[in-house]
């Protein structure tokens, strides 16, 4: 026998449930995960920065509990280096959905001497300690994040329910096998679980869903004119995190942001995509990953993300 031509099996075959179109399948999966957390944990919280992934997460949480309000507060670890458009958007969303927002300001931890400013001025890696302290202070037992497995290869091995030890650390070898859609949220006192409902979404899925659901985002995700300067191959913008150094020339360009993080290390991409449809076309054609294009912090080493995750980062 060589190759066998495939034929369809009769209906009634047992299999993995899959809903017709793939965006609806991803939505149903995410809502199921969010509701499991509501059913199994005492004190969940949603990490919310105002970026597109956490905005999508909030949108799904709103849908999961409709017509009741979202039964969790939001937590933002604010580096103090945020884009003003994103902070305004964050506050608008909180008001719109009548939510409680907890803000952990990295500046406070710097002032108290618990973390130290880095020589390069980047505050992204400084978020870990304020995050873990705030989780402990509020005794959060489940922490939702908008992380996706397609973002980075250490994330590709992340579980949907990711156990963190009493120090908030990710131990790749202690992660539990994740079977069917049965999530195991058991944890010992002091441990918590990070939950990633968007695990199986790609950047393009996110944009297609944003288009389908007409989800509002901070304006900087769309092309706009901005003064930028070139550093480490990225277009950075001046802000409280500093501006151009000597020899770095400021130019006006049409740009947009593919990711939104600490302003000191989040680069803009040159773009004329002013609508969600334009963005989808641009992302489809892009030959760079969103992190590769825009995040200096992931370029530090071959295992930069893995190391930060082990320390307790998102």
């Amino acid at each position, binding site marked *: 026998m060589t190759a066998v031509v495939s*034929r369809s099996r009769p209906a009634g075959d047992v299999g993995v449930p899959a809903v017709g179109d793939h965006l609806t399948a991803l939505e149903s999966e995410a809502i199921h995960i969010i*509701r499991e957390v*509501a059913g199994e944990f005492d004190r969940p919280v949603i990490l919310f920065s105002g970026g597109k992934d956490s905005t999508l997460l909030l949108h799904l949480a709103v849908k999961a509990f409709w017509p009741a309000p979202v039964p969790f507060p939001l937590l933002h670890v604010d580096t103090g280096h945020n884009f003003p458009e994103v902070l305004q958007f964050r506050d608008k969303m909180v008001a719109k959905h009548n939510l409680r927002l907890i803000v952990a300001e990295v500046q406070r931890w710097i002032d108290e001497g618990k973390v130290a400013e880095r020589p390069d001025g980047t505050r992204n890696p400084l978020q870990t300690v304020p995050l873990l302290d705030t989780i402990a202070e509020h005794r959060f037992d489940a922490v939702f994040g908008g992380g996706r497995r397609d973002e980075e290869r250490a994330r590709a091995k992340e579980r949907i329910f990711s156990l963190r030890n009493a120090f908030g650390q990710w131990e790749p070898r202690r992660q539990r096998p994740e079977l069917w859609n049965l999530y195991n949220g058991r944890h010992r006192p002091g441990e918590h679980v990070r939950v990633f409902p968007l*695990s199986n979404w790609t950047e393009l899925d996110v944009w297609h869903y944003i288009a389908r659901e007409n989800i509002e985002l901070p304006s900087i995700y769309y092309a706009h004119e901005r003064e930028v300067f070139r550093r480490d191959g990225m277009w950075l913008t001046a802000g409280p995190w500093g501006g151009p150094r000597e020899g770095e020339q400021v130019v006006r360009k049409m740009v947009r942001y593919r990711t939104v993080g600490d302003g000191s290390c989040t680069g803009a991409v040159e773009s004329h995509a002013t609508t969600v449809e334009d963005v989808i076309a641009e992302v489809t054609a892009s030959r760079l990953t969103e992190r590769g294009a825009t995040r200096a912090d992931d370029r530090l080493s071959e295992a930069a993300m893995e190391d930060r995750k082990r320390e307790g980062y998102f």
Partner: protein
Amino acid sequence: MSSLLRLATAGSVDDGKSTLVGRLLYDTKSVLADQLDAVTRASVDRGLSTPDLSLLVDGLRSEREQGITIDVAYRYFATPKRKFVLADTPGHVQYTRNTVTGASTAHLAVLLVDARNGVIEQTRRHAAVLALLGVRRLVLAVNKIDLVGYDEARFTAIADEFTAHAVALGYSPEEVQAIPVSALHGDNVVQKSGRTPWYRGPALLEHLETVPVADNPHDEPLRFPVQYVIRPRTAEHPDYRGYAGQIASGTIRPGDEVLVLPSGLRSRVERIDTADGPLDEASAGRSVTLVLADDLDVARGDLIAAVDAPPRVTGELSAALCWLAEKPLTPGARVLVKHGTKTVQALVERLDARFDEQRLATIEAPETLRLNDIGQVAVRTAEPLPVDDYTTAHRNGAFLVIDPPTGDTLAAGLIGAPLPSLGVGR
């Protein structure tokens, strides 16, 4: 809109699985320039002359250092026809643990063999685990076909041997597709290869794009585990009471008579709510909120089921376990069972058999089940559960075994006796 195919890969060390997955990603243009740059740089650092595509997949530092894959990794790629979620499961250590994890959500599995070695012990084991988990379609990728000179006779011998094994496990020959590939050179991965003119079947990607997905269990009886009770108690919705969940199997319509288990109370579906408005119909896989006509006491952990084909409600389970923990199982073990949305205390009363996946035979009354063992056990639960056999309803026939003190997942449980259906007489 394109459909979603979930697949798992399995193979032993050095079969070239990471290279095959890397090739699939690379040739479907799912690898972007910066990822490829990173791989090229790392390959040069390791003294290689061409980019090592397996480095796209091996994510953790120790994996790259040792050149092996440790943990299940998920990969995403898409063609205009389908979106693919690929669970890449490593083969050497803890093979059952990883294969079971990948297979539990897969429509299809790709097994790799090295054309020089053919079907080996691990291939047969993987196939048995896939059969047990009910993965309905298998692809045998006969890799490194270039190293046997693209030899048709060699390929046919391997394909025939494997198909015979799969048939013994309960597959029909149409459910098994053997493909000669070279992951390194790309033969028959995305494009049909000119070097295997004797092979008339599809390239791997074409097969993945067109294989019928063992479709949604829409025609099975309704099973709806209640996850959460939605009670807004707001001015706008003072008396709203809805039962949120994801449909495990079947199709539901307003007006359907339903049974709430384990209480056995009956009601009628008044509305199927979503945030986007009520639905006329919803099927397996969809997350919805059901509003019932009667004011019943329904809570998380209950199951809403079809009146005409209810599950059995029992505290005595006979089940197959895939043991996934270092700590062995002995009779009398006290555990937690998570079934659907309910977690109950349970006692493993007896170990009835251990399955020898090599010889497709069973060993009666084993003393323990160890890491990677598959066995048949008797479990008593503290409260009755509404269950189906795994072979007839996957979602309502599956459970987790959890270690009470640590919370670790110890085993995957499959209700009923799926081992005899593997062709093992007992």
